[in-house]
């Protein structure tokens, strides 16, 4: 019984999930029932910010995008770690400060490496 009581704490979460699912599906269902349907060729085209679509949507991307994506992930994570440290800086003190400096220096080495290897230039 104790096990069941533990699970009961999560009943509100389950209710919320069901409500969220029901709201999404319900909105789609009601919309499809009441809205007017007048399709024509231009309306069925893929939306590309108002321009007529050019070419197929599935083609190969330059490998350079992946390098940019990797760099983004690395420095994005750095920011994620820096933020909570900055917020609680006065409680953590010198020890955390030195650790953070080491962390930033390590990433700086990576930054210098990427820069010298021309990872930031497109051509």
């Amino acid at each position, binding site marked *: 019984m104790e096990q069941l009581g533990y699970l009961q704490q999560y009943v509100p979460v389950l209710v919320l999930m069901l409500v969220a699912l029901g709201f999404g599906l319900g909105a789609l269902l009601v919309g499809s029932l009441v809205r007017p349907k007048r399709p024509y060729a231009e309306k069925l085209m893929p939306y590309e910010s108002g321009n007529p679509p050019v070419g197929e949507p599935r083609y190969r991307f330059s490998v350079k995008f992946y390098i940019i994506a990797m760099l983004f992930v690395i420095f994005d994570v750095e920011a994620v770690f820096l933020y909570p440290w900055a917020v609680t800086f006065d409680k953590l003190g010198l*020890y955390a400060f030195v650790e953070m400096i080491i962390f930033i220096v390590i990433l700086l080495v990576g930054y210098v*490496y990427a820069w010298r290897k021309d990872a930031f230039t497109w051509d």
Partner: protein
Amino acid sequence: MPDIGAQLWLLGPEIVLAVFAFGVILLDLVIKEKSVLAYLSIAAALFIMFTMFGRQGTAFGGMFLADGYGLFFNFIFLTSLCLSILVSLKYLPVERINFGEYYGLMLFATIGMMVMASAGDLIMVYLGLELMSLSVYVLAGFMRQSTRSNEAALKYFMLGAFASAFLLLGISFTYGLTGTTQISGVAQYIKDNGLAGNPVLAFTTILYVAAFGFKIAAVPFHMWAPDVYEGAPTPVTAFMSVGPKAAGFAVIGRVLTVALGPVSSEWTGLLIVLSILSMAVGNILAISQTNIKRMLAYSSIAHAGYALLGVIAGGPEGLASMMNYLLIYTFMNIGAFTVVTLLRTEGVKGEDLSDYEGLSKNHPLLSALMLLFMFSLTGIPPTAGFMGKFYLFVAAINAGYLWLTVIAVIMSAISAYFYLRVVMYMYMKEPGTVIPVQRSTAGRVALMFTGIAVLLIGVQPTGFIQMARSALAGFGI
């Protein structure tokens, strides 16, 4: 924070190596002559090797353990790092992959292994394992123009990611059961609460055995080994057939014999199956190989099976014989790979068994050393390989596994066929075309060093086994 200085002192070897690794990465940007980076890396490894001993204690709340066990494995990792770099010096220009990142990745992989061997917490085990694995994945695919090398890296990465997932699942189950990820804490909890026979714990054990079995390339988790060993650059193959394997055994020693020590009967059976399968599959499949790198890959699977005997036997004697064997294996296996590497010259692959036909006529000293390494891998006295197996088998017999030892001896006899076939090709066949050999002083130094080590340990074996035994003092088994 209790005395940061003393804790950093315990982590000294890893910190120094990390500083050098970053130095190598940065220096690579301004320096044209890449061999400077190689010598810098070797200097760092040698410096650490001579200054690391004597550290004892726990750091950062039990996350990191500096003890004889970890230091002994550090010695194995640094030795294999130095030897592999020496072998690479002339090989990289031949393959047109003479980039400075190579040495940086080697150093980072070694740091990962050292963290694994000294980990006091399952999270640290995972961190070290990932640092090692990610570096070695890149190294396996370092010949980026070669499809074989790319295939090797991709296969290793895919299967390695799977193994990491198993390990993480095992760690999370352990945490769920015991409420701690500290290795000694897990053992204490299992003992205090009598978790033996718990089905979840048994499942966790299987996950650990699968994850570590992958890293040591034990059957049935060996599928990646032949393809990866064949495709990777030869010095990298030498490095990863020794370093990550030894690191895997180091973690098995910590996680299975310490953390899951109170339920040792549950994993011993699994390891016995792994050991028998590894010895049988490795040795029997090696017979049909004609590519020497592939043959040595199957042989390394078989050697993982032998070394598992030490873990199965357990206790200080079993573990010491396992550690001793891994050290000996480092010398003889890197030695054999050095010969394979030296045969790779401009325009000649030198990987096929037929390239060894009549090698003794043109290169008598090289052939004599290859003979020594092949004898040692078979386990013929007076070489180191014989003494390594001797201590393993004695430990297994003393622990009551006579039948398992009989199987191991029979498998060693089978292995003689394919090891001695190389010798037969070198000495009893007429040379076809003359195979040139790399003019590499560094490669020769590595060859001489491994050759002398294999002979010396074979004649005077007590030194290292005593070292391994005293390293286990205070290990907690």
